[in-house]
């Protein structure tokens, strides 16, 4: 980070006052009114029925200003594979939590279509800003699952290199990462790069002040950020109606002069279509957009949570019927894109990943306690060096005692 940047300084921030507002310009290019540009389509975008059949165009919710071309079969097959891996990762990790091998795991079981689409809509140089629940998105972006699990196993806070993977550390303090995403996009724009940044958050997170500040900064500075809200209906126990009285979360775009759209969050085809277009628009027009996906968290918030306290089993069952995995599988099989060979390959891939997770999480890894002092600053201060020495002495004494005890035991034998 100490070298200076030698790429030329990028396009200037737009001047304070423009003849046409951004909304007016983009909407008139699209031939629709500014309000129609900003407001989501009347219905959420959906390509597949819950049973996995392609809906007729007029039932997809699309329309003027809300057109979403369906991605190619190739892309969708690739997406399916990641979907399957994601599901397997979720369920393997949940099992490892039960076995006490992981400290915690907030599963995205049920939301994997969102996870996969969020990563796959991006180019290699684009950035992803995920939350604690977005492990599958991080993996889909190309981070090694074992590195991701470092945090959930309790070894260290983040186990991968955010800069290598253009994937920020998974954020726990809600909504804070949206601002980081905006800053990352701003940096790219200042350098004249055409990077797009996708920032993820949940429905509950939209209530935080940082949500407002992030969307507003992105709009005012015209930054290519796609804000992707996974609305799974709950923030731990608190239902959406306690978070918002807006008709939909996508309506929040209007307050920033942004376009908002709603998508069926369990329909991988619709998600891929909508997010890809959002990313394209963000890149070509250099604008932010808001996409809300309506989905469902099938399991409790984390292993520490008991969801029977706040939601009906009936509701959970209803959503099981809309599971994104089956839906996508049916569609691809019916279409002949997913044949037996492909299915077998996918399933093998899933098992390999799961096995490596099991092996790694069952291994005993013990981080070095002295490392606690190494990354507070780029160089430890005098104060930290003294504290490090104190701990080092303690550890040495303990080790010596341990050796003494051991020797005593061995002597006694």
């Amino acid at each position, binding site marked *: 980070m100490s070298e200076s940047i030698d790429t030329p300084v990028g396009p200037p921030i737009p001047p304070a006052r423009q003849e046409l507002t951004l909304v007016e310009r983009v909407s008139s290019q699209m031939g629709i009114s500014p309000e129609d540009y900003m407001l989501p389509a009347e219905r959420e975008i959906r390509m597949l029925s819950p049973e996995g059949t392609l809906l007729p165009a007029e039932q997809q919710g699309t329309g003027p200003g809300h057109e979403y071309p369906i991605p190619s079969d190739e892309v969708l097959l690739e997406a399916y594979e990641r979907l399957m891996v994601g599901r397997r990762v979720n369920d393997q990790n949940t099992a490892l939590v039960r076995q006490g091998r992981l400290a915690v795991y907030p599963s995205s079981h049920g939301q994997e279509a969102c996870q996969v689409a969020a990563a796959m809509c991006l180019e290699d140089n684009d950035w992803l800003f995920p939350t604690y629940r977005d492990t599958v998105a991080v993996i889909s972006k190309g981070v090694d699952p074992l590195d991701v699990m470092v945090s959930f*196993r309790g070894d260290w806070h983040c186990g991968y290199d955010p800069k290598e993977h253009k994937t920020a550390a998974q954020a726990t303090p809600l909504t804070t990462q949206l601002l980081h995403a905006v800053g990352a996009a701003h940096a790219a724009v200042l350098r004249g790069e055409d990077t797009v940044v996708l920032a993820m958050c949940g429905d*509950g997170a939209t209530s935080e002040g940082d949500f407002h500040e992030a969307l507003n900064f992105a709009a005012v500075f015209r930054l290519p950020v796609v804000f992707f809200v996974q609305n799974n209906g709950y923030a*731990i*126990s*608190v239902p959406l109606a306690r978070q918002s009285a807006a008709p939909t979360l996508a309506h929040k775009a209007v307050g920033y002069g942004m376009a908002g759209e709603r998508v069926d969050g369990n329909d991988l085809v619709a998600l891929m279509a909508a997010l890809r277009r959002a990313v394209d628009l963000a890149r070509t027009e250099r604008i932010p957009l808001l996409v809300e996906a309506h989905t469902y968290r099938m399991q409790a918030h984390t292993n520490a949570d008991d969801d029977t*306290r706040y939601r009906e089993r009936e509701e959970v069952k209803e959503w099981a019927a809309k599971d994104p995995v089956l839906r996508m599988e049916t569609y691809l099989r019916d279409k002949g894109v997913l044949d037996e060979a492909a299915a077998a390959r996918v399933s093998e891939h899933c098992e390999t990943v799961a096995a490596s997770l099991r092996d790694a999480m069952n291994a005993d890894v013990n*981080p070095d306690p002295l490392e*606690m002092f190494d990354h507070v600053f780029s160089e430890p201060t005098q*104060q930290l060096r003294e504290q490090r020495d104190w701990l080092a002495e303690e550890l040495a004494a303990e080790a010596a005692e341990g050796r003494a005890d051991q020797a005593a035991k061995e002597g006694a034998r």
Partner: protein
Amino acid sequence: MTTVTETKPAAQSAKPAKLTFAGALNAALAHSLEARQDVVVFGEDVGTLGGVFRVTDGLAARYGTDRCFDTPLAESGIMGTAVGMALNGMRPVVEMQFDAFAYPAFEQVASHLAKMHNRTRGRVELPVAVRIPYGGGVGGVEHHCDSSEGYYAHTPGLKVYVPGTVEDAYLMLREAIDSPDPVVFFEPKKLYWSKADLDLEDLRATYESGERREGSAVVARQGTDVTLVTYGPSLPTALKAAEAAAEDGVSVEVVDLRSIVPLDDDTVCASVEKTGRALVVAEAQGFASVASELVARIQERCFHSLASPVRRVTGFDIPYPAPKLEEHHLPSVDRILDVIDDMQWED
């Protein structure tokens, strides 16, 4: 009110332990809701769910959803509306779900909650209790284990309470709610499941009899050689260390502060003047912390009674570490004993 209940693991106690720390808090909330109509309890997940630690369990059902309710997920919003509610005659008890998640509310706390009474020249009181489950030792992931009492103790206008026993969990939370001043009430997460043989109705009667020990420290264990000053999450560790030291022939007096603001200088100084040595134990990172303040005051006030420098055992000056490392970060019995050992006994 002078007996001090040590927190003992249930298995070791003679009679079956009845009351948990979390249960005592829950009862204090319930009794407060019953005692005064102006009390309202709100925050994230405190309603239907009963809180992620179940401290508000059953309150919404028993007292109605207008007395105990969930808010949108926004801590500044929770704190700011609590300020407004209190200004307009209510007595809010709000929960910040975890220590680090109170930070978004920091402006509302520092610029309004703490200052309103003073800003308005005493005309507006803000009787708000802010409950913060806090501290480490429970294997929590990042941002879930901060010891943040220093930020609040450093902010004039806030009272800061940290109970370390089941009895105090009940009594001090009721005091916090009844206080005309804003109180930041720290609940050591690792004590939530500690238990004591206490009868809730006795506690309630004690509290409602009007006896108070607000702002006063207690001597949690008598001793003669060295004074160990501590509070909240470190109290059980301190008592264990005192026990162990006794076996080595060092008699440790343990002072449980209970309240950081106001602070009971008299009890602390009386003990240090008696023992001639002092050690402060607290989980938070030590730099510019409550522990620093305690060391500073003790030497300011008891300098000529001191046989050796006042020492401290605190968390290191690092961000709270990952679960597998926390045991090395937190003050431990051994670390306390080492420091006691090192207190120039030859003098």
